[in-house]
């Protein structure tokens, strides 16, 4: 092993930016460079040694913190694979495509969402089915593309998601809710390129809307809620699909039409190849439409006060919350919607419309964080449909622990305070780096 410390400012910058997607990979790489030690310290840009306390040790499967001196600790190890995968990606360029598969990703927040990547994976399957006559995947991007990372990395992400060609339309009249303008643009793409397939993510407020509009404009009977696509020689376009119907209670098998709206996990995202993501511009200008829908912009809604049924992230307090001011502060810092157990409501700490449970609201949050809530059956009923439950409680034997995906045993006030400190610190760090 070489003892020379090689400096790479970009990597160091990434290493400092913990929220950078490549942060862990870079840390791992640095760690390996520096002789296999744990990636808990590295040289800062001006030669100061920096420590990452978070990187010391990891939480084992049974909740015990472990410190692995072998140098293959979890964080590093997981990303080592990414690094390996990245390096092993095959570059593919399709110059003379036999046909086009158009994909209109949601580009939520300016980035490809997981759903978008699955859809691109599906597009690739369809495009690459015949190795002799490969098709090309053309992505139509609306609005600002922030990408992941910056510069070259940002463009690379598009290619790595499986995109051969990019039509990027980021004029301001496509911003916000502009279905009419977007539809006009897609119609223009249709005229110029006539893709064999149009694929949209079937996501409310994204592809679900635009895809249906396009289908009707093209006079196609779109397949919606598609979750499976298989080759089928009988079908007119060579594929058949399985689509959810009747509010998810039915599977409809039908030939894959020209326009399809697919669900998340309809295919595996691309992970072995890197595509050109070559930018195209439309030859003809897109006719401007007279819009009958005017977007007046987003209305400020305080996350704490969002209706519980709609909330995605709920911080819920019960009888075990001892400092309500700190609780409200934590909700604010985390950007979480506030919920409560009935006891907290009865005791007057929370409003009645915040009650979660049998006699309160049934919530569907992605993350439900129960602080000082014992998990009475009437409470658990209300969180049946939550994805991930996090519990903070003093009592390891109470029922919420059984339901929780992650339970931290300890005093609610201290743990919330630590969490708030951590989030604030991370936010601060991010701002510095940006």
């Amino acid at each position: 092993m070489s003892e020379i410390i090689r400096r790479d400012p970009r990597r160091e910058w990434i290493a400092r930016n913990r929220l950078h997607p490549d942060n862990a990979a870079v840390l791992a790489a640095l760690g390996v460079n520096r002789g296999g030690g744990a990636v808990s310290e590295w040289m800062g840009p001006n030669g100061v040694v920096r420590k990452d306390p978070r990187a010391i040790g990891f939480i084992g499967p049974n909740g015990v913190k472990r410190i692995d001196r072998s140098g293959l600790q979890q964080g590093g190890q997981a990303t080592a694979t990414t690094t390996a995968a990245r390096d092993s990606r095959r570059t593919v360029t399709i110059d003379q495509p036999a046909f086009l598969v158009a994909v209109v990703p949601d580009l939520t927040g300016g980035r490809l969402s997981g759903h978008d990547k699955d859809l691109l994976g599906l597009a690739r399957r369809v495009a690459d089915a015949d190795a002799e006559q490969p098709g090309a995947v053309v992505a139509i991007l609306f609005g600002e593309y922030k990408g992941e990372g910056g510069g070259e990395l940002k463009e690379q992400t598009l290619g790595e998601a499986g995109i051969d060609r990019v039509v990027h339309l980021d004029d301001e009249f496509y911003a916000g809710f502009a279905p009419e303008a977007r539809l006009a643009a897609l119609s223009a793409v249709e005229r110029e390129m006539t893709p064999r397939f149009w694929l949209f993510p079937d996501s409310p407020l994204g592809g679900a809307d635009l895809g249906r509009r396009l289908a009707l404009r093209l006079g196609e009977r779109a397949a919606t809620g598609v979750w499976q696509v298989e080759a089928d020689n009988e079908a007119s376009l060579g594929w058949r699909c399985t689509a959810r119907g009747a509010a998810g209670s039915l599977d409809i098998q039908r030939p894959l039409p020209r326009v399809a709206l697919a669900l998340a996990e309809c295919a595996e995202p691309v992970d072995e190849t890197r595509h050109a993501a070559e930018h195209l511009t439309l030859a003809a200008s897109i006719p401007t439409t007279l819009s009958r829908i005017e977007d007046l912009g987003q209305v400020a809604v305080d996350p704490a006060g969002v209706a519980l049924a709609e909330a995605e992230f709920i911080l819920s307090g019960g009888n075990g919350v001892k400092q309500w001011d700190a609780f409200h502060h934590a909700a604010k810092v985390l950007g979480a919607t506030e919920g409560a157990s009935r006891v907290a409501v009865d005791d007057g700490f929370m409003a009645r419309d915040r009650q979660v449970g049998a006699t309160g609201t049934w919530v569907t949050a992605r993350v439900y964080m129960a602080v000082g809530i014992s998990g009475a059956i009437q409470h658990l009923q209300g969180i049946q449909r939550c994805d991930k439950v996090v519990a903070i409680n003093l009592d390891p034997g109470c029922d919420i622990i059984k339901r929780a995906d992650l339970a931290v045993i300890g005093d609610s006030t201290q743990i919330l305070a630590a969490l708030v400190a951590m989030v604030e610190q991370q936010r601060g760090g991010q701002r510095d780096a940006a």
Partner: protein
Amino acid sequence: MLETLLPILIFTALALAVIGAVRRIRLWRQGRPSRVNLFKGLVALPRRYLVDLHHVVGRDKMISNTHVATAGGFVAAAVLMILVHGLGIANPLLGGLLLLASASMFVGSLFVARRRLNPPARLSKGPWMRLPKSLMAFSISVFLITLPTVGLLPEGLLEGGSSWLLALVLAGVVAWGLGEMFFGMTWGGPMKHAFAGALHLAFHRRAERFSTKKGGAGRSTGLKALNLEDEAAPLGVEKPADFTWNQLLGFDACVQCGRCEAVCPAFAAGQPLNPKKLIQDMVVGMAGGSDAAYAGSPHPSQGLGGKPVGEHAGSPHGPIVALEGKALVDADTLWSCTTCRACVEECPMMIEHVDAIVDMRRYLTLERGKTPNKGAEVLDNLIATDNPGGFDPGSRLNWAADLNLPLMADLKQVDVLLWLGDGAFDMRNQRTLRALVKVLRAAEVDFAVLGTEERDSGDVARRLGDEATFQSLAKRNIATLAQYRFLQIVTCDPHSFHVLGNEYGELGGHYVVRHHSTFIAELYDAGRLTFAPWKGGSVTYHDPCYLGRYNGEYEAPRNVLKALGIEVKEMERSGYRSRCCGGGGGAPITDIPGKQRIPDMRMNDVKESGAELVAVGCPQCTAMLEGVVDASAEVRDIAELVADALVERSADDVTGASRRTTASTTAEEVIV
């Protein structure tokens, strides 16, 4: 002078009273028709008064005696007074009796006065405060004017020129007494209760609730069905005139004694319901006007201490609950009731509060679609899935996958049909059900369950006012039950027990239904169960409303506990005075806020009894009491306690020696 004055006074008062009575009767007759046998009712009146009413009043000996003296004295005095002073039959015998009657009344009124010295909060004030004085005025004046009749005072004493003043004063007092007692009786004074009360007893809507000489049970607790076939028939009660005439009459009988208020769990929890006030609201509505004159405790209200009087008003044909704003009562008053029947049980005037409340709820649910909070969701679930939780009806028996429960569909005919109830979907209650199955198996009972063919009994739907959903569930259950043969239904859910036993009959389903505690007690008596001695701590027992007050079963659960070797530490409020757990009548679903929770109060009762465990016999009670945080006692169903104590029967027992010493009943007989 008095001799001329008295008849005039008496007959004027009587005439006015008759006019008042006619007017009052017209008020009642605004109500909808109700078929009662008027003659039979009048004939039964004395018995209903002397036996049934005094059974309730007699719970407080003091008041009961007071009432006998005062009321008895008054009735006798009034009749004699008309004879003696009205018609001038100056018979010394009659006079003597009159003296006696008025003296008795006077003594009674002294006790009434004493009670009014420092009246408890539940008593209404206002005109009721002057009642003892009026009673005294009447009795003293009658006594005095009768003295000359029997010759204890010279006839002419009040005649002389000098004594005209005295005579005038006396006449004034007589007028006061007559005014209160005769005029006031039919014109809305406190004595109205006597007039309306007597007729209410005679024309009561539930003649079945009174005992009969032949030893009739004297219990009638099932709600009466709405006619849904006739599209023109009204759905519940929107305005006072939508009550039946004898319900209106019943409201008018209220003496504002506040006994209902004192026992009402919702009132105690600070929820906006005072049953006494509610009945008075109905009286106000029937007559038209505002509640400003009401002088008792108001409906509680969070923050305000009580809803101020004078803000609510109504009329016989105006809505009781306003669409917006205020009318006669607020909807949350009606939705606070747990239908625990504590008020009905206590009411000396035999008023049926629960019927009235459910009638008004029916209108709100069926016509307005305004069942509060989770009500609408629960009703939708009942419609779509036949259970209030919206669970897959096909999973009703999932909890018992390992128990191999015999199904009615396979057996067709058994001794005991085990009705599981919706507790089958609840993890806590599944433990009780498992215990019960274990007990039945230990006693080798021939039983089976309906399994996925069972549906919610309709209890909650009915009490939330959704008679349509109730009847739909009930009819389908009755059709299912009709396919099978069984001797009796056993259930651990008193709500199903009540509905199946007391409410399905009107829709054509007649069954012998037993609560599991009753059945277990019978099995034990028949020697089919043997228990290990109790080793746990002290135990108290909570009477579920739907088992106790609704069905009169207070003994069997206690007998079972006794058989287990448990000596029950009774709570202060137990038996027919048991305090509700807060779980009935859909109250946990409508969840009207108060200042505290009913189950918390009940667990406090448990705590005060010093017991470490509270035995219950109802899934709803279990859920409510277990939902109390920081409780001092454990909550267990009787079935669980029994199952834990089961021991293999010894050979002797198996030969079938019954524990009953008097009549050795065989197991088969018990089952039948």
